């Protein structure tokens, strides 16, 4: 995945893009993101007009509808401050996918400008703010699912670095870690059989490693794996990276 040159970070003001999945289902992951960013001294703005990054229609092939939503997002986040997203997938939509569907559009430049300011949460903390370790404590073995849309980006390594630095956290590896969880946005509903088969394989690999908690930086992956585990009666505790970071802070002396 092409990774654009980043706009340098000036000051501590950031804009949170909560993502539509957090808006609808995973409110606590977004809340944890706010607490984590504020702990780092960031002044977190939340543009109220935000909706979605535009990815559902982009993946579904309705680029015209997607571009309408991307344009709305570009307007909503036009302030000159980094946009931090607790999702590798939505971040990749803004710095890669959107540019693809705007290739022949007159306002490609504005879309690319937003892309250069957009950061996935772990990437922002580690590579944007230069944080190399996380304070606090959490007694847990953690399996980190690196979501597919962070391939070729620094996000996966950043998340592993942060998690591994928390006192008490033990990172555990699991089989076929590079394989997709089967979510894939509209793929999950267009191809329910294949999607569920992929998810169940992932679940079995994760559960075989017996982690206390499965962690991902993407609520899409977590929704797929938790939803499958609940249906299949498999015991799975799943958390967003931001929730783990926040919970560790709570144990800071």
């Amino acid at each position, binding site marked *: 995945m092409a990774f654009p040159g980043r706009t340098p970070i000036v000051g501590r003001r950031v804009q949170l893009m909560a993502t539509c999945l957090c808006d*609808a289902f995973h409110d606590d992951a977004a809340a944890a993101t706010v607490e984590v960013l504020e702990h780092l001294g960031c002044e977190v703005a939340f543009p109220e*007009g935000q*909706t979605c990054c535009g990815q559902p229609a982009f993946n579904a*092939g309705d680029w015209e509808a997607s571009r*309408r*939503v991307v344009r*709305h997002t570009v307007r909503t986040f036009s302030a000159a401050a980094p946009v931090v997203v607790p999702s590798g997938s939505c971040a990749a939509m803004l710095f890669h996918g959107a540019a693809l569907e705007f290739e022949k559009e007159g306002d490609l430049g504005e879309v690319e400008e937003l892309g250069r300011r957009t950061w996935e949460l772990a990437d922002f903390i580690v590579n944007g703010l230069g944080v190399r370790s996380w304070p606090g404590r959490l007694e847990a073995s953690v399996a980190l699912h690196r979501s597919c849309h962070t391939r070729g980006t620094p996000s996966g390594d950043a998340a592993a670095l942060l998690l591994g630095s928390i006192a008490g956290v033990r990172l555990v590896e699991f089989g076929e870690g590079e394989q997709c969880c089967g979510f*894939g946005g509209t793929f999950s509903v*267009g191809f329910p059989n294949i999607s569920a088969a992929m998810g169940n394989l992932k679940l079995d690999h994760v559960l075989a490693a017996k982690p206390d908690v499965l962690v991902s930086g993407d609520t899409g992956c977590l929704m797929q794996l938790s939803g499958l585990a609940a249906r299949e009666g498999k015991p799975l505790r799943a958390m967003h990276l931001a929730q783990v970071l926040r919970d560790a802070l709570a144990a800071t002396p």
Partner: protein
Amino acid sequence: MKLQPIDQAAAALSAETRAAVYDGSKVGHEKRTRLLFDHYADPDRLRSLAGEIKQHVVENLDTYLPAVEARLTANGARVHWASTAEAACEAVHSILRARGATKLVKSKTMVSEEIGLEAYLRERGIEALETDLGEFIVQLDHDTPSHIIKPIIHKNRRQIAELFERNGLGAYDDAPAAITRRARQYLRHKYLAADAALTGANFVVAESGRLVVVTNEGNARFCLAATRCHIALVGIEKILPTDRDLALFLNLLARSGTAQQLTVYNEFILGPSAAGQPDGPEEMHVIFVDNGRTDVLASDCRDILRCIRCGACLNVCPVYRQAGGHAYRGVYPGPVGAVLSPLMLGERFSEKADLPKASSLCGACHEVCPVDIAIPDLLLRLRDKAHREGVPSPGTPPMGPWAALATRPAAWRAALAGGRILDHLPASLVPIPAIRAWESKRELPPWRGGEFRKWLKMRRQ
């Protein structure tokens, strides 16, 4: 609920076949990764270099093709151009007819599958026998290949032993050594009786006119040694600029395709046998096949023409592993096939416009591609093309209503509040097919629409 054809195919696949495909592709992928990363400090640099070279060829086919023709002709080969599958079959047939040939031995070539050569020749009284073990088994079973490199990845050895027994190749014995020995015994006589040999070409070098054919069984070499006429079927995108480039490409192809440092047999063919050479074909024909490739070239997905047919993207693809190659309804399965097959149909694109949908866009195919093709981007472009052309896509939610909400913040917030009704409706009554499809396999988490915004407002007060 209507399902995508590839999802239906996956659901219908037997557990035995799925296991064979899954295990075969997983082993191939894992061995490849070890080999590449053990041998090279930065394999990704090699992949991008190879990608640049092939992209350069693709962008300059108009000059490379005449240059290759001139070289080949100077080397003593005859060059033919076939714009369609039919024309390619006719070209092979007319060469064979001129020699009165009725028995052809074939080394593995995907182009021959693509143009339906075997059936075409059979109808005209010519036997075209596959000599690659996998392709031989496919032919014996009246089956079709389900993988570019491992045509019988969907079969296990019990099924092959039974097939051999049914066809009089020997009593049931599923030991791999026995299977190979029986095929070898059967094929040896066929080489000696053949009138002509047909191969593909992995690469054709522009500067030298050298054809390169790689096999692991030596069957291409047998084909060439035993016959006096060599016909090579070559896709027009198979060109490399210089002989030097082969160092890079042979290393990448062997590692990516079969997780080998080098394929066992590498044929470098510079022309027909020279005067005074006792063995080898006295006649050499190279048939360059378009068959839809210029349609691909004219599209915004021309990068796919870099493909060197290694199959690495199939092996790593989670969808291919679940669905198997036959689900893709054509010669090229997996991620590369999902791009190539619909485009090669030209005007009939819509017949396979569902293939690009069969991907979670996980990007694993791009990560392993030896010529660095950004396959997910191409799949997305084809989804856009299908949508613009109005091709129906079962299971894809309509995006108009969603976009209407997502561009109107007040309506969006109202929908966040209203979504709560989902918690109180049984799945079967939810008026949104996408949610029913979700709930066919998974639980939907409790609706928390707007809760984060409320929390933030409280915190800020």
